[in-house]
Every structure is written in C-alpha cells, then in structure tokens.
C-alpha cells in the first residue's frame, strides 16, 4: 500500500499565545511518511521542526498552545482522537526519542523498570516477562551485559548509553513510526554514528522514521526523503538524491554550501547564510526566507506554495524563482558569495 501514507500531516498550524500576541511557530506544514520510509526534517533552530512533531503526538501540553490542521495516522486524525485512544497510540504505534538523553529518563527508577513500564502500559504481560523483554531490548541496542545493566539507574549510564536506553524503550512495542528529535545532537561523533546505525537497523525491521536534525550530514547518510523547513514552513521537500544533487530552494543551497567538503576547493572562509534566522513572532507575509535571500524579487512579497517544478513531481519547493533557471542562479550566487568572502 504505497499510496496510503502511514502519517499524513495536512496544513498543520501551531501557535503560542504570548504577551506580545499570538506567535505562529508552525504555519501550514504538510508532510507525509510512507510505511518503512525515513524522512529527514532539517532546518535551523526555531524553524518549527521539533514543535511540529510534538504537535503530531499531542505532547504540547502548554495551555497557551493552539494546534490546528489534520494529523492522519493510518487514516485516523490524531488531533481529534479522545485522550485514551491517543495514549494507546503513543509509545505503541508512534514512539518518540528526544534530544537530550541526560534528562529524558526519570532519575529515581532503574532503566529496566522504565522500559518495562512502557511495555506493561500497552500489553498485558507479567512484570517478569516485561523485565526479560527489557533485557533483550537493551542488548539489541548494544548495551553490553544487559542482564545486569537493566538494574542500573540512569545516572549510572553515559550519555550514549542513555540514548540507547531511550531508543530501546521507544522500540519496546515495535512501533510503526519512530520520531527521533535530534537524537544525536547531544552526543559525540563516534556515538552519533552508532546511534544512526541503530536507526537504520530499526528501519530495516519495518519501522518508518522521522528524523529531525539540523545536520545535513546526518540526513545525507540515512534519509530516503528530505524536508527542509524554514520559519515554520516547508521550503523544499523531495527524495534525498534530488534534494542533495539538485536543490531548488535558495535556503537549501545555503544549507548545503555551508557544509565543509573534504575534497572540495580550499575556501578562505566557510560560506554562511547571511542575516539572522527569522523570529517566529515576525514572520513576513510572503516568503519567510526573502529577507535573507540574494535573489529576492517583487513576487517574494506573496506567500509561495509548495509546488513541483517541471520535472519531478515528488520534488517540490516553495520559491518564486523560475524552476528552469535554478541551477544557473545557484552558480551565480555562489560566485558572488565567494567574491564577497575573499
């Protein structure tokens, strides 16, 4: 059933009520994840990637938050589900792994207890059986000597081990979708690679993954599809190959150009995207990236819609530049940038 997506988010809007008025953090985001797919969501801090995923699982408990739109999971709208049914989906159908493994576990219970707690919340198994499964899960995610480490407290684990434990917990009920919110950001590079391997392995077992990150390198290693977010909106979306080899949106160009290349030409200075990220409170009417864009023109006052160019229907972007001139325009800006830098 490749035509029915597992997760289909339509026109998701999240806004916070603040003293300065209502602030829209996610503005009309749509995305879909097919069963078994890995979707990489990239964007800088404040682009709305984490908040949108928290909204999907209805984990935004702050009373000042308003969420609208549709979040269809296997055809059911999660946003209108009764609390009890939502709880049955959380942890069982959709699991989530968070950024900071140091604080993600309750400090007063053993790691195994916390894994078993999740299993027992969803399945009628005995304490003993849940515990045995926790041991298996921990050894699956690469914790050595899992049978005794299952009784360790979170503070007795290193950061990488804690993240593994959190992932083991997320996997405990074989979820069909795993949302990982920057799971490697707080970890050092070697551990990062191991965690990514773990995600990949999990994916081969059949779970779809949404991987939120601001690291283009991570995305290029693992994602099937890529969603680039800016200012709470989708800037570009498409298969990984298409986005990395033929990026269309000027913001994606900036992201890709600012990744240092080992074999590439020696640059005096790493290219950066000029200007500051847009603050959620002051989103422009038109294209959110326009204030920082070198190719801004009159039409950018209008809000661009996500649309496919002429070639590939699966590769879409939200930009007013003529689709057939993008490659040439990208080269021009790049030369201009390097002249400014030197």
């Amino acid at each position, binding site marked *: 059933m490749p035509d029915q997506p597992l997760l289909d988010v339509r026109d998701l809007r999240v806004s916070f009520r603040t003293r300065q008025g209502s602030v829209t953090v996610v503005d009309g985001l749509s995305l879909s994840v097919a069963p078994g797919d890995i979707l990489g969501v990239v964007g800088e801090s404040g682009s709305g990637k984490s908040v949108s995923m928290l909204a999907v699982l209805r984990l935004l408990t702050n009373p000042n938050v308003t969420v609208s739109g549709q979040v269809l999971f296997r055809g059911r709208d999660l946003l209108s589900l009764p609390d009890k049914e939502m709880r049955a989906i959380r942890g069982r159908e959709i699991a989530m792994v968070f950024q900071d493994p140091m604080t993600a576990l*309750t400090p007063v219970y053993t790691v195994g207890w916390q894994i078993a707690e999740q299993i027992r919340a969803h399945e009628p198994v005995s304490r003993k059986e849940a515990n045995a499964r926790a041991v298996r899960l921990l050894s699956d995610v690469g914790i050595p000597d899992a049978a005794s480490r299952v009784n360790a407290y979170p503070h007795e684990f290193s950061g990488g081990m804690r993240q593994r434990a959190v992932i083991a917990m997320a996997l405990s009920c074989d979820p069909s979708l795993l949302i990982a919110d920057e799971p490697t950001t707080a970890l050092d590079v070697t551990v990062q690679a191991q965690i990514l391997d773990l995600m990949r392995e999990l994916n081969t077992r059949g779970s779809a993954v949404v991987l939120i990150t601001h690291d283009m390198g991570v995305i290029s290693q693992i994602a099937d599809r890529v969603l680039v977010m800016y200012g709470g909106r989708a800037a570009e979306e498409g298969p990984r190959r298409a986005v990395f080899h033929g990026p269309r949106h000027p913001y994606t160009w900036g992201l890709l150009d600012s990744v240092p290349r080992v074999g590439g030409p020696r640059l005096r200075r790493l290219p950066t995207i000029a200007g500051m990220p847009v603050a959620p409170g002051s989103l422009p009417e038109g294209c959110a990236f326009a204030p920082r864009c070198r190719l801004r023109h009159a039409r950018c006052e209008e809000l661009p819609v996500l649309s496919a160019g002429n070639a590939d229907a699966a590769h879409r972007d939200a930009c007013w530049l003529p689709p057939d001139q993008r490659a040439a325009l990208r080269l021009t800006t790049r030369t201009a940038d390097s002249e400014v830098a030197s």
Partner: protein
Amino acid sequence: MLSFALKRFGSALLVMFAISVLVFLIFFATPGVDPAARIAGRNADPATLAQVRHSFGLDRPMPVRYLLMMRHLLVDRDLESFVNRGSRVIPQIVQATPVTLSLVIGAALIWMVAGIVMGTAAATLRGKAADPLIMLVGVVGVSLPAYWLGEVVNLITQKQLHSSVFSWVPPPGYVGLGQDPGQWALHMLFPWLTLALLYAGIYARLLRGEVVTALGEDYVRTARAKGLSERRILIRHALRCSLIPIVSLFGLDFGALVGGAALLTEVVFGLPGIGKLTFDALQNLDLPVIMGTVLYAAFFVVLANALVDILYARLDPRARHA
C-alpha cells in the same frame, strides 16, 4: 551501611558533648549569675549560701563539676532537680517522652498527608481558581501562631460551643495510650490538628513548587510519549521525584518537634511533654533538668538527621554512592 551508622553515631556523640559543655558553661560561667543564690532562694545569708555551694558541689573546679554532673545524669541516673528536691531528671524525661511522641507523630501524619494532597492538587490545578485558594489556606495555616490558634481552639471547644457541638471534647490534659486508647486519641485530636495546621501549609507550598517544576521536566515528556496515563505520570514520576526535598525538611522538623519545639502546643493544651518540661526548667533556671532535656533534644535532632540521610538514599538513587 554499618560504617555509615557508626559514623553517624560518632558524630551524634560529638554533637551531644559539645552541646552539653555549652549549656554547662552558659549556666555556670555567665557573669553575674550565681547558681547557688538561685537554689538557696532570695535573701539567703552567706552561711546558707556556703552550705548550698558545698552540698551541690558548686565549690569544686568547673571541669570536675561538669564530669560529676554528667556522671549523675547518665551513669548513675540519680541527678536531681535543683528546684524540686527529690525529683530525678531521667524519670521526668522518660515520663514526658510518650506525651511528646504522641503529639508529634500524630500531627506529623496529618500534616504530611494534608500537605501532599494539597500540594499535589494545587500543582495539577495550576491556572485554575482552586490553586490560589489552596495556597491561601496554606498561608493562613503557616501564619497562625500555635499559642493563639490553640487558645482559640480551646475557647471554642471548651467554652463557647462546649455545651452544644463539642460536648464530646474532654478537658485539656493527657491520657496514656496504654491506659485508654480511645481517650488518648480524643485528648490528642485537637492538639494534633492545631500542630498539623501550622506545618501542612508550608509542606503544601513547597511540594506544589516541586511538582510544578517536575511536570515541566523532560522525563515527564518521555513518560507522556510512552503512553502512560496522566495519573500515573503525576504520581509515579512527578510526585515521586518531588518528595525528595520534602523528606529532608520533614526530618528536620520532626526532630526539632520531638526535641521540644512543640512546646507552645503542649503548654496550651496542658500536655506534660518534653517542651513543657524544658519550659518549666528554663523558667526556674533548673540546670539539671535543662541539661537533661537539651541532651535529649540534641539526640533526637541528630537521630532524625541520620534517618533522613538513610531515607534520602532510599528515595534518590543518585545519593547512594556519594
């Protein structure tokens, strides 16, 4: 565990020694105060004074006097009050202890339950009208002094409404638990409530803050993402972690109250407990009794602290290896 207990015991002894020396010095080395004159009464002639000095050992060097007093107090246990001749210190303390323990343990149970319920309720009702209301009740409780609240309670239950609503309330005083458990509870009921009201508010406030903080922690978000019920998240995760600082406060309060800090409540309700004993001894500058009760209080404070440390390690695994 054994070395921990031994260390604790050692430090308790040290603290008690230091306190006893301090009390002794305050009593005997305060300039302008002559204990003999106190014992002999007003306008005693020099001959009587000399005799008193000799019979109470006040003419011997200070360290010897200290050691003698400690020996009588702790080894021979026949140290007598200076004021009430013939009444011994240790039996007095032994008699007063169950009264104070009855009062404090009962009140502590009430205020812990009330504090936890109120604090947790206020935290979960944050932003609704009930939250400030519960906290207001807490502030009122904290602000009422025991001597005032106790007197008002007495006034209402013993006088104003005694003929109608509160005819079942016995007159102030103490009945031993072994003598008549029903009467014991009846006599203790209002003292318990009075003392508990003073503490429940503080505990509710503190706990509310802790629970509110905990509910914003990452691990609560994880618990929610696991699909747990809100009730389980609140009790097993947020509240469980919030109880850790409450326990240490409880240990200190409990130790101090058993040590005599429940004095005002005891006096108001006519309970012959440790607080009352200390109070009377202080009024008469009755050194042997003061010495006995102060050492007793120090013992309980140190004991309570040790218990808190053990309990703390049970509650917070991070404290275990530190």
